[in-house]
């Protein structure tokens, strides 16, 4: 194949691959990419047929003018903030024309660079893990193109008309790609991050972080319906210690106290920053945690998600803001994935600054009709307040049906739910219970969050998705249960009126689930360690490495001290544990010795490497050294002087060194010209002769 055809063939393949992810990323439509790929295919067909005629300049100019209407239309998109689409459209059009206008070598490079920038646009807007395959595929093809370009350039520069020998590249290219992945992985993790991670928002034009919590300060009765329709992952969590018994995996996100016009909202912001205690944790409750979990929250903003049993939060590089209703937020906005540890008590706790009091807004009775008051009074009956509330909870669970397709529209959707349709989703159940309780003067608030999760056995963590979104009720129950008054002391309790079989489910099994779990595992890794990997993670990596190093030396030292026993542990009950200083002092000699061990091993490795790489002494080396020595003392020594002439000349000039010179030259001639392999004894003789000759030459000087 001619050089020109080889190069254009590779460029055509690159053109075919470069824009493929763009429509998936919603940067441009499928039409534009299909048109471009069609042009690339046509170009490949022409190349295959051996046609290499280029478009005339006047045709290129006409095609350029023809694009102006499209450009004007595209520029209108700039107003909506979609900068990338007009640029990519222009690039695709320009590249399609340029493919057919390759005349010179530099045109090929222009095409190559243009296609590379299409590739960069595709990569920069990719958020799916499949981007890694695209990256490797394009890198392989681009590497092959560069290799062939370089090779053909060399061949054409030295070409003498003979047939070029076939140069196999397949295995080499495979090896190079594997090596590049191995080398690129640490580079990716250690390249300095200066800003917060940026994740392209598909079809967003200018990009932004992903917002997935689904909840805001205003919450209408269709919010969860919308949120639960997706399986977007909100957060993942894993238990570090055995979880509390009978835990429901209920996570609290937001609380609301005012209901009007079919929507819940918050009365006012009554939040305050939680101080970090001496132990480095943020204490939400006075109880000490009995178990711990770690949460990886995919978030953009300040919304925090906590299990209802949470008492302590371990959040190294941020703060916690808690409001009086127990809703927690991050002190500083975050983007991407943040991880934090949560300590939990044995039972649900409704946290917040006002955990033993209620507020008037939590008794607001708007949208409560007389029918609702009657219903509440009838169902709740008389007795202890907690028991009355349980009766209402059971009533709603048993008498109403869960449905995501209910038609509860109208001026009072809750009344319609209670008396007409008698079906709805968790928001209707929770809202109805909250309002019915308020009709009976029980302070309540609506809580949104997540219930249940999917267990991923691949890494033993739980996945909470948007489909796990849920709403329930917190009701204030006074300690004496005699009546509810403003300022009376009591406690907030959790009630969930949604039928149990209609709550978000977990624990599905089967091959599909396993595949989903595997896919989620991959997604989690991709999200956590690629898309949202940032400076804080780099700090964590360095801290982790430092700690691992410290642990390693500690382990080594302890092992040297006494195998199988921690030096910090007390020997028996009467003997106190040794202090850090004592432990340090006791193991110091071992530690110092062991610290020298890597240095010693490194020195040995360097010495071994030097020994293996040493250059063997040969007669040729001795002859070259002799020539150099002679030339340094004799400016008139011609560069082209041959060995025999050199011997004569040195014998005349340095008669004392004549035998040594003769020995070196004769062995050099045998080794270099006759191709004779000298024996060890001969090499030793030459070495001795060279040492002696050098001394004599220097002495004569």
């Amino acid at each position, binding site marked *: 194949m001619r050089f020109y055809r080889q190069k254009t063939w590779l460029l055509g393949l690159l053109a075919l691959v470069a824009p493929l992810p763009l429509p998936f990323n919603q940067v441009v439509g499928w039409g534009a990419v299909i048109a471009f790929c069609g042009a690339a295919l046509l170009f490949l067909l022409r190349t295959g047929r051996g046609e290499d005629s280029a478009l005339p300049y006047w045709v290129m100019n006409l095609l350029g003018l023809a694009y102006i209407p499209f450009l004007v239309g595209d520029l209108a998109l700039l107003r909506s903030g979609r900068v990338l689409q007009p640029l990519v459209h222009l690039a695709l059009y320009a590249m399609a024309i340029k493919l057919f206008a390759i005349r010179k070598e530099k045109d090929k*490079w222009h095409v190559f*660079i243009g296609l*590379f920038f299409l*590739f*960069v646009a595709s*990569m*920069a*807007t*990719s958020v799916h893990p499949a*981007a890694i395959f695209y*990256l490797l595929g394009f*890198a392989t093809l681009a*590497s092959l193109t*560069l*290799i062939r*370009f*370089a*090779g053909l*350039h*060399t*061949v054409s520069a*030295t*070409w003498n008309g003979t047939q070029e*020998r076939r*140069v*196999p590249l397949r295995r*080499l290219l495979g090896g*190079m790609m594997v*090596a*590049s*992945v191995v*080398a*690129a992985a640490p*580079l*990716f993790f250690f*390249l300095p*991050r*200066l*800003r917060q*991670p*940026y*994740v*392209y928002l598909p079809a967003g034009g200018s*990009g932004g972080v992903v917002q997935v919590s689904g909840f805001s300060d205003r919450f209408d009765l269709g919010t969860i319906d919308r949120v639960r329709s997706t399986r977007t992952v909100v957060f993942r969590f894993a238990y570090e210690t055995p979880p509390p018994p009978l835990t429901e995996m209920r996570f609290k996100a937001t609380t609301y106290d005012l209901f009007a016009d079919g929507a819940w909202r918050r009365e006012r912001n009554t939040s305050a920053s939680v101080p970090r205690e001496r132990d480095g944790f943020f204490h939400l409750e006075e109880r000490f945690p009995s178990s711990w979990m770690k949460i990886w929250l995919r978030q953009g903003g300040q919304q925090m998600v906590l299990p209802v049993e949470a008492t302590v939060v371990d959040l190294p590089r941020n703060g916690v803001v808690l409001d009086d209703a127990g809703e927690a937020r991050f002190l500083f906005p975050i983007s991407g994935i943040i991880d934090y540890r949560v300590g939990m008590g044995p039972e649900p706790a409704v946290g917040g600054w006002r955990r033993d009091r209620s507020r008037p807004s939590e008794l607001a009775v708007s949208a409560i009709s007389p029918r609702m008051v009657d219903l509440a009074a009838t169902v709740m009956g008389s007795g202890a307040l907690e028991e009355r509330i349980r009766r209402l909870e059971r009533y709603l669970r048993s008498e109403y049906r869960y449905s995501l397709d209910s038609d509860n529209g109208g001026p009072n959707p809750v009344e319609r739910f209670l008396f007409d349709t008698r079906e709805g989703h968790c928001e209707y159940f929770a809202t109805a219970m909250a309002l019915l309780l308020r009709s009976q003067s029980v302070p309540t608030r609506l809580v949104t969050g997540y219930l249940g999760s999917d267990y991923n056995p691949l890494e033993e963590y739980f996945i909470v998705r948007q489909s796990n979104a849920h709403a329930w009720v917190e009701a204030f129950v006074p300690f004496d249960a005699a009546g509810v008054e403003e300022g009376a002391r009591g406690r907030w309790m959790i009630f969930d009126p949604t039928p149990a079989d209609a709550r978000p489910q977990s624990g599905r099994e089967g091959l599909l689930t396993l595949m989903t779990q595997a896919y989620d595992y991959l997604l989690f890794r991709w999200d956590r360690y*690629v*898309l949202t*990997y*940032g400076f804080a993670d780099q700090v964590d990596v360095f801290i982790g490495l430092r700690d691992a190093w410290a642990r390693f030396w500690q382990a080594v030292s302890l092992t040297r001290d006494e195998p199988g026993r921690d030096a910090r542990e007390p020997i028996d009950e009467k003997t106190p544990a040794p202090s850090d200083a004592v432990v340090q002092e006791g193991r110091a000699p071992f530690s110092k010795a062991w610290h020298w061990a890597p240095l010693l091993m490194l020195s040995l490795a360097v010495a071994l490497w030097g020994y293996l790489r040493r*250059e*063997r002494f*040969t007669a*040729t080396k001795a002859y*070259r050294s002799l020539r150099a020595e002679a030339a340094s003392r004799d400016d008139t020594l011609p*560069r*082209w*002087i*041959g*060995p025999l002439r050199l011997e004569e000349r040195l014998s005349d000039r340095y008669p004392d060194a004549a035998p040594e010179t003769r020995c070196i030259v004769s062995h050099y001639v045998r080794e*270099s010209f006759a*191709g004779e392999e000298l024996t060890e004894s001969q090499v030793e003789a030459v070495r001795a002769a060279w040492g002696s000759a050098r001394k004599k030459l220097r002495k004569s000087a």
Partner: protein
Amino acid sequence: MRSPAVKLERVRITKVGVWYILITLVIGVAGANTGNNALYLVEAVMLALLAISGLLSKRNLSRIVVDFGGAPEAHCGQIFSLPIVVSNRDRVLGRRYVTIGGLDEFEPLLIAFLDKGESVRERLIFQVKRRGLHRFETVRLSSVFPFGLFDKAMRYPVGLEVLVYPEIFPASGLRHFDPFRVGDEPSRRAGWSQELRTLRAFRSGDDPRGIHWKRSARTGELIFMEREAEEGLRMAILLDNAVGELAEPAQRERFERLVSEAASAAVHYLAEGYEVSLATRGESIAHAGGRLQRQRILTALALVEPVPRASQPLWSGRAAAAQLRLGWSEERQAS
């Protein structure tokens, strides 16, 4: 033969390399500025490929052994090929797109592919413009493999000595060259031809088969038949190199022309079956024929250098043979 350690003589970034580094920088800045980790991925792969390119290009020039065959008969100004064997001593990787050259005298030779452990026989085309003993200490191995980002070259020590003979002109191109036959006189040396040279008394060491039995019987003493040698045509070439110091290039050119004429004449007469001798100031080669004599004369002429002018004329020592005199004044004289 042990492959020499790679000592890079030159690492030059090519235009493609400059562009590659610039684009890598731009993507790095874009990644750092936006925090887009996808750009960091691209940056990491580009940096990795850059590093791999650097390592691979160095490896591509290492563990290559170039063995030069025997030096051919090389004449000044003429193109000759030198047989070489290029071997790849690497047991893991092949070598690709390696160019051997780097000297003005050599035409670059491309080794497109050399598999691991493979050896190929090639011919290095070269042309030397000056006669004499030439020493080529090194040749240059260079390559832009793999991506053409770097042009790396290393000096490969060869220590090759080539004796370049004077330029040989075609017979018709020689000035005043009109082959003539002079000195077609009988040889006075004894030999083994059919012609009888003389009869003499048999001496110890003579071949008994040469005893003339009839004459011996007649005289009563052993008589030996001495035969003539079979040689006949002789030419003495006298090159007077006492031309003094040659300061001007034109003078040097003129002297080189004289040497080339002497060499051309010697080659011509030897090819014609003559016994040729050569005499210069300080060098004298007796009459003889054949390939060895040709090599002797050409070697002497390859190394002949101008010497100070002398008043005494150059004397061949054998007035009987035909002579071709070449000197500063006479240029060429035949007698």
